[in-house]
């Protein structure tokens, strides 16, 4: 069964429907890119999938034993975060909160996972640094490390490279690709249609109408 199945989904706000009749599924190991113009409903779709916005119709089914507390999410940066006093380690660890139930403090296993996650993202040496003093690329890697702590099977990334310089962008894409190779399903929003075609196994494009394209062959050879 697919990790995520979307049937006849309609998304939007109180004021109206942004997109409807969305049908697609995400399987283990998939790399789905959501592309399209600003305001076409990409972010709304992701927020609806994550339960941050109400759906207007249709169905979202989490399968394969995937629980709500097992998804990872990399949201767009907010104003609050830019001057937030937090060490890298504090932020990464906060990704573990979903699996904690009513336990108030992090245990040794979660701290170990945070260490591994930071190592994977190449930010171990930044663990004690203050988040607001990091570069844009480093900040995104911190947030990705946090998302990894929350996720076992699927990651939702909302424009992970927006505002990054070209080098940091490539590095970010490589890191995401690496996670995907390790078996993590990726659902990513991006402006950059040309760039994501190199990586994506599936593309959901919001244009005049919504198209869902499989690029399986790319995934196999890529």
């Amino acid at each position, binding site marked *: 069964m697919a990790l995520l199945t979307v049937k006849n989904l309609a998304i939007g706000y109180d004021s109206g429907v942004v997109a409807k009749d969305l049908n697609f599924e995400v399987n283990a190991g998939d790399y789905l890119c959501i592309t399209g113009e600003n305001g076409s409903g990409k972010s709304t779709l992701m927020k609806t999938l994550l339960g941050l916005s109400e759906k207007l119709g249709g169905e979202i089914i989490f399968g394969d034993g995937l629980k709500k507390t097992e998804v990872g999410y990399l949201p767009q940066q907010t104003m609050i975060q830019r001057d937030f006093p937090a060490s890298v380690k504090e932020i990464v660890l906060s990704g573990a909160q979903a699996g904690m139930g009513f336990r108030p403090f992090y245990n040794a296993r979660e701290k170990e996972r945070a260490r591994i996650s930071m190592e994977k993202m190449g930010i171990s040496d930044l663990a004690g640094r203050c988040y607001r003093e990091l570069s844009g690329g480093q900040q995104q890697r911190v947030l990705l490390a*946090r998302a990894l702590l929350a996720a076992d099977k699927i990651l939702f990334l909302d424009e992970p490279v927006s505002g990054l310089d070209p080098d940091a962008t490539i590095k970010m894409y490589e890191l995401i690709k690496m996670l995907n190779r390790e078996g993590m399903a990726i659902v990513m929003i991006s402006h950059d249609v040309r760039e994501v075609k190199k990586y994506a196994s599936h593309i959901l494009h919001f244009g005049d109408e919504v198209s869902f394209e499989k690029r399986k062959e790319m995934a196999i050879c890529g």
Partner: protein
Amino acid sequence: MDNLRIICMQASFAEKIIMYMQYPFVRYALIVGTLIALCSSLLGVTLVLKRFSFIGDGLSHVAFGGVAIASILNMTNKMVLVLPVTIICAILLLRTGQNTKIKGDAAIAVISVAALAFGYLMMNVFGTSANLTGDVCSTLFGSTSILTLTLPEVWLCVVLSLLVVCLFILFYNRLFAVTFDESFARAVGTKVEAYNLLIAIVIAVIIVLAMNLVGSLLISALIIFPALSALRIFGSFKKVTVFAALLSVTSALVGILISIVAGTPVGSTIVAVQAVVFAGCYIMGSVMKGVLI
């Protein structure tokens, strides 16, 4: 010669303090003042970071309105009315704040000003007290009510403060997560609404408690100053929280002692001390940044 004089002055200051400490009301004031300073600084960090610096102001005016109504109704225990009203307003204010920032801002301003105006109006029209200005002034500025605390009031304050501190420690990690990134927290299944509700209730309790100490006008200072001071210097949430708590407690102690010895109003003195500390931290932060660059 000068040194000798300073030593003499210090001795007399210390003697004065020791003398005053023998009075229970001074001890009560110190205990309550310290605890309230501690609680408000803990929540202050979260509120300042969430851009809710002014919620203290807004809610304290609501509490003022509550006190006014309770006085008119001649209620013996004003808390019964003031606390629920303030909690409800806190919940409403924090809720509107989630959607759009400007709305939350405006909501705080509206509730704050309206509560203040209605409170004063009610006291004026229906008030039975002969000394209306004095009453209003003491509710707004705290005056000396902290020096007239009774033992049950001190115990109530101790119990509530301990409760706040325990809740804060237990939910510290969640509070961090919810403050830093509400969308992430919600996406991974954290009950963000529940925590916001908890924050609202706790902050309302603190404000109602703090009204005794500094009065409703100066509560914002207790919430904002320690957090801002610590934010200038430290870069991790834990350090900021701990340092804010330490600063707040120290300034409150120093402020109360000065006010007792010098006979100045308690609330204003504490806030003045905190403002000086903030200026110090501001300069220190700038110097540290300069060194880093």
